Each structure stands twice: as structure tokens, then as C-alpha cells.
């Protein structure tokens, strides 16, 4: 019964786009409602605004970008944790002009990297691959400087920037998904307050389950209504862009690959998180000794929810 | 309007204010006044005469309370003392410069002191009209200061000082920018006001003739440091009119004053 539905707000970290598709799907196809939830999606923006709203209780669930942020929450003593990871691979990609053949060659290019990127994965690139900070120029979420400078590469989401580059630059860029080179964080997580996990695990479980089902349906079912809602929330979005994003998510197995074939979408494993943390310590992105166990819980995932919705 | 120049003068001998050993030194080390002793008496018409830069304006500002003496003191007497203690001095001041508010019309400028006393536009209207009539500017009530000639600005300033009918009127060369005929007329009008209101007037002027014609007493200043070097008393009950102006007595008084002024200018 709709009247009894729990009102929850889910804050994303960017404007509405296909990368949030599963959540919109669960809203429009009534999955959340079926799980007794009345979900409002609060889109984010270029500034990661919504993140601080989680610990102070203004929102109930937040779409985290990757594990690094969850680790720094532990460092700063912020009582939030990850309860599901919708993306098995971080879509973070380095986009290069077509003449670049190998990952190694990027070391000789100018790289447009955002400040957040520089503070996170780029440190790992420096430590593990010998990239240098000197080759970096600021990436301001605009691909024009990259298009103009033929001797450069830039960061991006595999599902997003390459589309603009193809359209405007008129060429198909080379893409190097960081996840494929060892940056094995989970991405597009669901974070919530530790207190909520303790006191109302049922609510959390319902949200996680419904979201996972939403994702299955978005990827493999009829997603037109979800896309319509995305476009309503973000009038800049076009069908072509959405189609491109979905194709890339599938092509690179962003959502559904690896562990998900057995554990279902949203899967998280201790081993994977530990491995990532160790790499980051190695790269001096993080300090050793962080109680990473406090940054997540696997109690709500790995249950194979919705697996039946995936094509065989 | 013709002045009733034969009405009795309001002067009494009661002191209103005494300056005792007053000195004024400015920040740039100029000593404008030094050891100034003078008295202002209730109801008198006192003129201050002296060379340019001798400290007349400075003395007037001290009397008005606009600046503090560096040494010496000012003693207020009688009724005025009580008034001042109660924070209700009733002073009209005509500055040496017109000092008009550029954003207000002639009417607005003259209205100002009444407005500050809480009297609204409508209520103040007759008094303002009368004051403007007195200085001959009835036709310019809606003009702005920058549209006036030098003498007209000064007349607005005079009207503004008179409109409140103050008990003490301090005037710093009010008529310097006026032609002689206007000046003569205003001289008579001022005497009339003085007699009617029974107010006290301290009047700075450069004109020996004017000072003799108007005053019941004249103080002659010398310069740097400024102080009083001569005093002349003129019978306040002497009618001031064209007859007086052409009388040998007047000529004699003028000569006497001129000589005092000449001595003040070359005191060595």
C-alpha cells in the first residue's frame, strides 16, 4: 500500500544520465513502490554537493563515486558506509587520440585530469605506472582543450565523454579503462548512514534490492520510461547519448561482469576491497592502517537478487 | 517690508557668554587665536572686525560650539546656560560659504532647520515664504543651488538662519557677496529682526561702514595670534536709518573704527 511507503531520498553525484539508469528504472516501473519505498532522486552537480547531506540526515542514501571516498569517510570519522556497489568497474577512462597505441605511450602526452582525479587515481598512476604530475593540465569537464591539442589525452567516464569526442571531434578515440589496468575499485555505490544500517536494516535491504532489480531491468528490460524521466530531470540529455552510455556499460561490463554472474548485481567482496586498498596504500593515495572494514558491509548484497532478469 | 528702525533696541547688559583666555591651535601648528578675552551680552548686536585670517570665523565657531578651544574656556550665563545644559541651544549660523545642500531646492534648504525641529513642510510653509521674501528670493523656491548666482546662494543661507527665529544669531560675512542696495535693505531687515526677536547677534564683517551702522558694539581683532585689540560701543538706542548713515557722528565712528582696524593690522 502506497500510503505506508517509507519516504527516502537518494542523492546522486551528477546530473541525471544513463549511468543512474537503474535507479530511475526502479522509480518508474514501481519496483521501489513494490518494496514499500517512496523514493525521491536528488540529482547532483559538478560540485559533489550531495555527499555531505548524507551524514547530516538530509538524504538517506547517496550514490558514491568510488571506494576512495568511503575510505576517507573512515579516516574523517564520518559514520557512513557502503551497502552495495552497482558498478563492478570504475568507468574512469583515459581518452586518447587515435594514434596512441599503448597505455605506456600516455606517459608522453599532456593529460587533462580533474583536481579530484589528481588527488585520487592519478597518484596510483604515478606510483604504479610512472606517470608524472608535470604532464597534467586541469580538466574542467570540457573536452575542447583535448580536441585541440593533438598531443594530449584526457580523463573521462567511458560511458560519457567519448560520445562528445566522437560527435564533435569526428573520430573514434582510443579508450583505456583504468579498471582494466588495475584500478579495481567498485563504483556507483550506495552509501548510507551506519546508524540506519544498525537500526533499520530492513529499509536498507529493501532499497538495495529494489535498486538492483531496477538495474537489471534498465539494462535488459524496457527502459524507455526510465530514460524519459532522465530526460525530464536533465533536458540536455538525448536519446543518442543514453544509447551510447548503455552500450558502453554493456561493452565494458561496468555493471554486470565478474562476480555478478554468481553473486548478482551490486556484489562486493572483502578480497577485492582489500586488494584495492593495498594498491592505494602502495601509491600513497591512502595511509596504511585504515579500518577499511568500517567503510562497507556486504550484509545486503551478494544474494543473487534479480539474477533471473539477466538474459541467459 | 520696511524695517521699523526706531523701535527700542533689545539690548541689556546681562552677560550671555564670556570667553576667557581662549586659544585655538590647529593641527598644522597655526595658532589662530591666543589669549582671546571677550564677552557677548544678552541682546546685543556685536560685530567682529579684523584683517583676513585673524580668527574671526574661528571665534564664531568656538561660540557655536563647533570646535573646542585648545586653551581657556567659554562661560555661558543666565538663561542660555540652562538652555545649553538641556541641550536646546537656539543658534542660527550663517557660514562664510553658502553651505547649501546641492540635492535640495531653495525651499528644501530653507526648510531644513525647521524640518530638523520636527516641523513638516506644510506647517513650515509660511515661515519659509516669509524668510525667502525677506531675502528677495520668493521666485526661486524651486531652483537648485547650482542654478543660483553667488549672491543668491548666500541669501538662501541667510534665509535658512533666520527662519527658525533663533535666540543667538552668528553671521559670518553674510552680506559680502551682495550689492550695496540689497545689502542696505538686508541691513535694515536684519536690524528689524533683531529688534523684533530681541535676539543676540554676533556679526562678522569686513565693512567698517556696515559694522558701525548695525552694531551696538564692535570688537576689532588683530591677526596671528588673533585677539581683541579694540572695542567700540555705539548707542543701541540710536535710530539706524539714512539720517544716521549721513550724520557726522556716523562718519566719526567710521573713522575711529577704521583707525582701530589700521592699528590692528600693523600692531608693531
Amino acid at each position: 500500500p502506497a500510503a505506508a511507503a517509507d519516504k527516502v531520498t537518494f542523492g546522486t553525484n551528477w546530473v541525471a544520465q544513463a549511468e543512474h539508469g537503474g535507479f530511475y528504472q526502479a522509480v518508474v516501473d514501481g519496483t521501489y513502490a513494490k518494496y514499500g519505498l517512496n523514493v525521491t532522486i536528488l540529482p547532483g552537480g559538478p560540485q559533489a554537493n550531495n555527499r555531505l547531506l548524507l551524514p547530516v540526515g538530509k538524504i538517506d542514501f547517496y550514490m558514491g563515486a568510488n571506494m576512495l571516498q568511503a575510505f576517507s569517510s573512515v579516516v574523517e570519522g564520518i559514520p557512513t558506509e557502503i551497502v552495495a556497489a552497482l558498478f563492478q568497474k570504475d568507468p574512469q577512462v583515459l581518452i586518447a587520440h587515435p594514434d596512441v597505441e599503448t597505455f605506456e605511450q600516455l606517459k608522453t602526452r599532456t593529460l587533462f585530469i580533474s583536481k579530484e582525479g589528481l588527488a585520487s587515481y592519478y597518484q596510483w598512476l604515478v606510483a604504479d605506472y610512472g606517470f608524472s604530475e608535470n604532464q597534467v593540465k586541469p580538466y574542467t569537464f570540457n573536452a575542447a582543450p583535448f580536441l585541440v591539442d593533438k598531443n594530449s589525452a584526457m580523463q573521462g567516464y567511458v560511458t560519457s565523454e567519448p560520445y562528445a569526442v566522437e560527435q564533435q571531434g569526428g573520430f573514434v578515440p582510443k579508450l583505456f579503462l583504468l579498471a582494466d589496468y588495475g584500478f579495481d575499485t567498485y563504483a556507483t555505490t550506495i552509501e548510507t548512514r551506519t546508524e540506519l544500517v544498525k537500526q533499520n536494516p530492513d529499509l536498507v535491504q529493501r532499497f538495495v534490492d529494489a535498486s538492483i532489480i531496477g538495474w537489471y531491468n534498465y539494462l535488459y528490460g524496457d527502459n524507455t520510461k526510465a530514460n524519459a524521466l532522465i530526460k525530464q530531470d536533465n533536458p540536455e540529455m538525448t536519446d543518442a547519448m543514453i544509447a551510447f552510455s548503455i552500450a558502453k556499460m554493456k561493452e565494458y561490463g561496468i555493471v554486470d561482469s565478474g562476480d555478478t554472474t554468481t553473486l548478482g548485481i551490486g556484489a562486493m567482496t572483502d578480497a577485492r576491497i582489500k586488494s584495492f586498498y593495498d594498491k592505494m596504500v602502495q601509491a600513497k593515495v591512502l595511509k596504511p592502517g585504515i579500518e577499511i572494514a568500517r567503510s562497507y558491509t556486504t550484509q545486503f548484497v551478494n544474494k543473487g537478487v534479480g539474477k533471473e532478469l539477466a538474459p541467459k | 517690508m520696511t524695517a521699523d528702525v526706531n523701535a527700542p533696541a533689545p539690548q541689556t547688559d546681562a552677560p550671555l557668554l564670556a570667553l576667557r583666555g581662549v586659544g585655538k591651535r590647529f593641527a598644522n601648528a597655526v595658532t589662530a587665536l591666543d589669549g582671546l578675552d571677550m564677552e557677548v551680552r544678552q541682546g546685543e548686536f556685536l560685530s567682529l572686525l579684523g584683517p583676513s585670517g585673524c580668527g574671526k570665523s574661528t571665534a564664531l565657531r568656538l561660540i557655536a560650539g563647533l570646535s573646542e578651544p585648545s586653551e581657556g574656556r567659554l562661560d555661558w550665563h543666565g538663561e542660555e546656560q540652562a538652555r545649553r545644559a538641556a541641550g536646546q541651544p537656539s543658534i542660527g549660523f550663517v557660514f562664510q560659504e553658502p553651505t547649501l545642500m546641492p540635492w535640495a531646492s531653495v525651499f528644501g534648504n530653507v526648510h531644513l532647520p525647521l524640518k530638523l525641529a520636527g516641523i513638516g513642510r506644510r506647517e513650515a510653509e509660511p515661515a519659509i515664504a516669509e524668510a525667502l521674501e525677506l531675502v528677495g528670493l520668493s521666485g526661486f523656491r524651486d531652483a537648485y543651488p547650482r542654478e543660483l548666482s553667488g549672491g543668491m546662494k548666500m541669501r538662501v543661507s541667510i534665509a535658512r538662519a533666520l527662519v527658525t527665529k533663533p535666540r543667538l544669531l552668528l553671521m559670518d560675512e553674510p552680506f559680502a557677496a551682495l550689492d550695496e542696495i540689497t545689502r542696505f535693505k538686508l541691513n535694515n531687515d536684519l536690524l528689524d529682526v533683531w529688534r523684533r526677536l530681541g535676539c543676540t547677534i554676533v556679526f562678522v564683517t569686513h565693512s567698517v561702514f556696515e559694522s558701525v551702522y548695525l552694531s551696538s558694539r564692535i570688537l576689532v581683532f588683530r591677526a596671528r595670534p588673533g585677539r581683541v585689540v579694540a572695542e567700540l560701543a555705539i548707542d543701541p538706542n540710536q535710530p539706524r536709518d539714512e539720517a544716521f548713515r549721513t550724520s557726522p557722528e556716523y562718519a566719526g565712528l567710521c573713522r575711529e573704527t577704521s583707525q582701530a582696524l589700521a592699528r590692528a593690522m600693523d600692531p608693531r
Partner: protein
Amino acid sequence: MERSPFRWLLPIGVLALLVAAWHFIVTLNNLPPYVLPAPGAVLETLIRDRAVLFGSMLVTLETTALALLLAVAGGVGLALIFASARIVEFSLFPIAVILQVTPVIAVAPLMLIYMSTDSAVLLCAWIVAFFPVLSNTTLGLNSVDPNLRDLFRLAGASRWQTLALLRLPTALPYFLGGLRIAGGLALIGAVVGEIAAGSAGQGSGLAFRIVESAYRLNIPRLFAALLLISLAGILIYAVLSLLSWLALRRWHESEIGGPA
């Protein structure tokens, strides 16, 4: 010339010249639209996307107007408090300076904790816009003709009367100068506020259109949005200049001889 109606043609002519130069730079250098779109393309986009863009512009203009209003209230209000005594001004100005130099981009997320998105955007725009009003008004309030001040003192004017009848009129030209600065700042304040604290999605202002267009490399649209902001800025400036002229033309040197 100075008074002729043709004077309005001049700034328009200059702008037209600028647009022409822009056009030729683009076509002669064969610049791709993602580097610099041709004016024609921008105009086309503007017309095509007018519904979305004008809607967003209205949102932004609303914020701007409200922020400017509050900046005037706040700036003048603070200036009046400061005007009570030099020592108050001296003691409190650092706080105003702190407000001015606080980068709203950085604190916007913190604001969102305590207030709604709309209020946060408004606060951002206000922070950016209030200081010129405050600073110029304070300067004006302190620039009173000393003779007039004496006159008021003599007439037994209360502190309040001196303020209302002497210091405020004196400050008016300065205030209006500050207002002309604040007008543009309120506009960029609104834009920056929207970027920093604004909700994305429907019903949001021009900033959002800009960020999203940039991200999608829809540069003609970005320029269309910038164009609207520029037009809004010029409009605001023209209105404030007119206001200034109406208020000062009868007595202040800066406005005698026609609106700037």
C-alpha cells in the same frame, strides 16, 4: 550627438562590430564549433532551444533580482551600522571582508546542510554582491561636506536626522556607483551559486545549462547561454544607470549632461 537618439545606435554598432569580428575569426581560421562557434550557430541554437534557455534565464534573473535587492538591503544596512561611529566601522569591517572573500564555491556544500537549495543559491549570490554596496555606501557616508555637518550639528539634528537628511544624500552617488557594480556581481553570483549549490535538472538556471552544455561539448549552446547572461548583464546595468541618472541629474556632477 550626446543628446541625440542616435547615441543608442553607437553601443549597438560597437557590439555589431564585435560580432562581425567574431564571425570572421571563426570562418577565416576555420575554427571547429567546440573551440569557438560562429555567431550564426549560436543564434541558431538560441532560437532553437529558446524554450529551455529563456526558462532558465528567468530562473537566474529571479535569483539575481532577489540577490541584488538583498545586497542593497544588507549593504546599506551594514553601512548604516558602520556609520554610527568610525570605531564600529573599524571593528566590524573585517567581518564584511571575510564574507566578501569567502569563496562560495567552497562553502556552498556546507550551506546546503542548513538550508534549502534555493536559499543557498541566493546566499551565494548575496555574498558576492553585497560588498560593493557596503563599501561604496560607507565611503559615501564618510564623505560628507564638513560645513554641512556643522550646520546639522548646530541645528540640533539627531544622529538619525543627520543620517537621513545629510549622510544618505551625500552617499547617494557613491551608493549608486556601488549598485552598478553589484548588479553585475549579483548576476555572476547567481550563476556561481547555481553551479556551487544549485540543484540540477528541470527548472534550474542558466548555470546548469552552461555546465551541462560544456560537459556535452555542446559549445554553441554554452555560448547561447553566455549570450543571454551578457544581455541580462547589460540590461541590468542600463536599468541601474538610468536609475542613477534619474536620482542625480538635478544636482550631481557625474550625471549632469545626460545618462552615461
